């Protein structure tokens, strides 16, 4: 059976070169970068090299990069860390309704601690309107946190415009760029952001590798306190191997960004065309153009996502879904809901992310399989039967 992964947002293989870069730091150059003796030397240099490569990918000063163990950690450090350090200036934070849970859930906690939070709405494509941000900012606002791109629907936010609005009011701007870095050009200086989160595993680096860019002068409090690693912003013996992997992944991503993006977009566009041509009653979720190149998100009317996902899995095709049954919290995608996608279409949503192993030649197979699966499930769907009855009556 063919094996076709279309769920590279959930997880992707570590790039071969990246893994090679990492391996020696486990058992060979295993020293602690903080050691005063020579065993610390090579690991320390590896950290510095990684810092430069990660900084290079986003146009930052290497000294502004704080390594973390995930994008979730970077997001928590950025938002809670900034809120804690700056609460005397105000206790209002603005975000969007389509953020990742690692932003939204910590804001719930901050609310309980006396902060107020404004969740900006998005349009049908998932875009935040800068005018809404302008309206939301008050004298109490200390932070705006809006994602660079959405991991589920791929929509790319107008960060530069949003930053301009925040800067007019002297408000610090954080962007969760985990779904963007490595796939679209991101330059912290051109965008003007003060903080930016990224995740190594989103561009073929290892899981458990992330980073937060914190512009010089922006004060945040550490989540993990202890030693003064990462300028005191993140205690704990540095994870040299994974950081080296993150750095190498960043180096390669910077080099190959355009090529990767073009390849992914070409595949994604062809797949979309093929699916929409062959299968009736599909709907595109997210923006038709302003989306990360590897992301496709569709809703298959009348059927539920987990059932689709399972049947596709049996056909060797891996996807994910925004249905409630596939979510950890048993709620259907808050992102699709924020876009105004009707509940039954949110339940039938599929997220397809192109990755390194996807071939244009596989598109007919994927299309055929999804067509089959959709038709099997529609045939047992009360919603589909009802639709067909109504269509008949109307005819």
């Amino acid at each position, binding site marked *: 059976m063919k094996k076709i992964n279309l769920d590279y947002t959930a997880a992707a293989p570590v790039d071969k070169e990246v893994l090679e870069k990492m391996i020696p730091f486990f058992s060979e150059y295993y020293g602690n970068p903080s050691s005063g003796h020579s065993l610390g030397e090579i690991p320390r240099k590896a950290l510095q090299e990684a810092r430069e490569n990660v900084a290079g990918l986003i146009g930052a000063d290497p000294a502004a990069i704080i390594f973390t163990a995930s994008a979730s950690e970077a997001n928590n450090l950025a938002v809670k860390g900034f809120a804690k350090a700056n609460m005397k200036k105000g206790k209002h934070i603005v975000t969007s309704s389509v953020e990742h849970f690692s932003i939204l859930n910590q804001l719930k906690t901050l609310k309980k601690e006396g902060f107020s939070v404004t969740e900006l709405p998005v349009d049908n494509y998932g875009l935040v309107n800068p005018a809404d941000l302008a309206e939301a900012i008050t004298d109490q606002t200390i932070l705006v946190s809006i994602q660079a791109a959405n991991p589920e629907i791929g929509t790319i936010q107008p960060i530069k415009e949003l930053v301009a609005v925040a800067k007019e009011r002297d408000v610090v701007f954080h962007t969760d760029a985990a779904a963007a870095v490595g796939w679209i050009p991101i330059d912290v200086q051109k965008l003007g952001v003060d903080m930016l989160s990224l995740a190594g595993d989103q561009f073929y680096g290892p899981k458990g590798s992330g980073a937060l860019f914190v512009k010089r002068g922006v004060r945040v409090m550490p989540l993990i306190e202890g030693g003064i690693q990462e300028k005191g912003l993140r205690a704990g013996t540095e994870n040299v191997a994974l950081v080296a992997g993150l750095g190498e992944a960043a180096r390669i991503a910077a080099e190959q960004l355009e090529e990767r993006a073009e390849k992914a977009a070409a595949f994604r566009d062809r797949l979309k065309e093929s699916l929409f041509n062959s299968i009736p009653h599909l709907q595109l979720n997210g923006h038709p153009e302003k989306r990360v190149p590897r992301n496709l998100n569709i809703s298959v009317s009348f059927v539920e*996502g987990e059932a689709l996902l*399972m049947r596709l899995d049996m056909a060797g095709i891996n996807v994910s879904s925004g249905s409630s049954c596939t979510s950890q919290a048993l709620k259907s995608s808050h992102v699709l809901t924020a876009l105004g996608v009707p509940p039954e279409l949110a339940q039938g949503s599929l997220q397809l992310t192109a990755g390194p192993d996807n071939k244009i030649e596989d598109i007919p197979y994927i299309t055929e399989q999804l067509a089959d699966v959709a038709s099997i499930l529609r045939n047992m769907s009360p919603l589909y039967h009802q639709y067909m009855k109504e269509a008949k009556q109307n005819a």
Partner: protein
Amino acid sequence: MPEYSDKVMEHFTKPRNIGELENPDGMGEVGNPVCGDMMKFTIKVKDDRIEDVKYLTFGCGAAIAVSSMVSEMAKGKTLDEAMKITNKQVAEELNGLPGNKMHCSNLGADALHKAIEDYRAKVNADS
């Protein structure tokens, strides 16, 4: 999905008794698309027994397997027997369901009972 038992997978992959009976004696519907699962059961009754049963299901793997299982369990049973089928029994027959699926997807017995009640209400109305 890997948490599903083989029996669940077997019913999900090859669900029995799919469809909608024409002119059913009873019909029962539970759930809605917001919660993610929806089942519609139709039954034919003869001599107080469920002679035939079919269902349509919008829902996850568990919901589909549960519908299929219920239809098999119900077929041939007297109405009183069928009314005693519980969601818990259905889950047991399927060799268990993942904890988080016990509530939201395990509504097959409810739908069946609704169909039986629908039939009984009609019979009562006719008599």
